[in-house]
């Protein structure tokens, strides 16, 4: 069965707020990996205090994914380093997501 996977790459400092936002939108889970990278807002590596990036993945139904995208876009795109993309994935137990 098909579900959406939303991936967000953004500043570590936003982790708590991102997780809250994912929960509020009704997603049932998420996965985070540590990342670093470069984009419009320059180089972001995990050394020292600044913290690097996180890469957050949420598998959910399409409307949930789109609603999270919209909220993140409105709240954080102006001031924070953030990239966001969507993919279709096939899951084994669609009821989990």
């Amino acid at each position: 069965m098909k579900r959406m996977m939303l991936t967000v790459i953004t500043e570590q400092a936003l982790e708590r707020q991102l997780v809250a936002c994912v929960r509020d939108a009704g997603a049932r889970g998420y996965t985070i990996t540590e990342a670093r990278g470069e984009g419009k807002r320059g180089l972001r590596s995990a050394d020292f205090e600044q913290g690097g990036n996180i890469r957050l993945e949420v598998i959910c139904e399409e409307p949930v994914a789109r609603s999270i995208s919209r909220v993140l876009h409105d709240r954080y795109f102006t001031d924070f380093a953030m990239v966001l993309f969507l993919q279709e994935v096939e899951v084994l137990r669609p009821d989990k997501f």
Partner: protein
Amino acid sequence: MQLDPVMLFFLLGLGAGLMRAQMRLPQAVYELLTVILLLSIGLKGGVELAEVDLLQVLPRLLGVAFMGVVLGLLAFGLLRLSRGLPRADAASIAAHYGSVSVGTYAVAVAFLNTVGVDYEAYAPAFVVVLEVPAILLGIILIRGLRPAAGWSSVMHEVFLGKGVVLLLGGLLIGVLAGPERLAPMEPLFFDAFKGILALFLLEMGLVAASQAGAIRRHGLFLLGFALLFPLLGATVGGLFAWMLGLSLGGALLLAVLGASASYIAAPAAMRLSVPEANPGLSLTASLAVTFPFNVIVGVPLYYGVLTLVYPLAGGV
């Protein structure tokens, strides 16, 4: 005047970083070193705080906290002179420079030990009370009373950063346990202090070097501010020390704290409360310019001036 050996470690890190040497101290190591340094400083203060009259100390701590606000306002005022710099950035940089750098403080303590000058036992408490006020000021200057992420989460970030928690925790443990019962911990927290500071400075040198490229991007005004504000901050620190009747050693520490800029508490707090400020500006100024300047030039310079001026002014 010769450089203290801990500063040589900073120079080694800086040099290695600028030449892009294949060396890194992983973040986990940085965290470990920071935790030990903060606890060491707190414990040392706490052990001796036990024998101090609190009624004498409290008004001085209030005075020092007030100094943090003064420094923040001074910095903000000066930064607003630059037309190009957005108000949010000025406030954020002011928050960094009104607050303090524990690493710089540790270097000054090591310096006093080397030259054999005493200082007030409760000086670590200065670091604690200076960390927060300028950050709150910076937020209020932009958000008024409504920071982006809500006061509760800002307060959380400001008061529960590792700086405040570990310094305060160390102080408390030091007071409660007293010198004898802490004796078995001396090998790690006191005897190894200078070696651990050396490793920490090696890492800070690498970090400063990695930020060096950003200096050019941010223009001459920021560079000038990051080099000159420490002189003003040290002067203000010295004046407050004199008004509060501190010893020469205490005056050096307060001058160094005045001259130093935060790179632990302030960046995290400002990112969440004033996100439109560019975090690169304040961090580059603080880490790549002011920290090296204070560690290499500032500490001995402020000490040299204070030994001349402070006794004349009737300071102890």
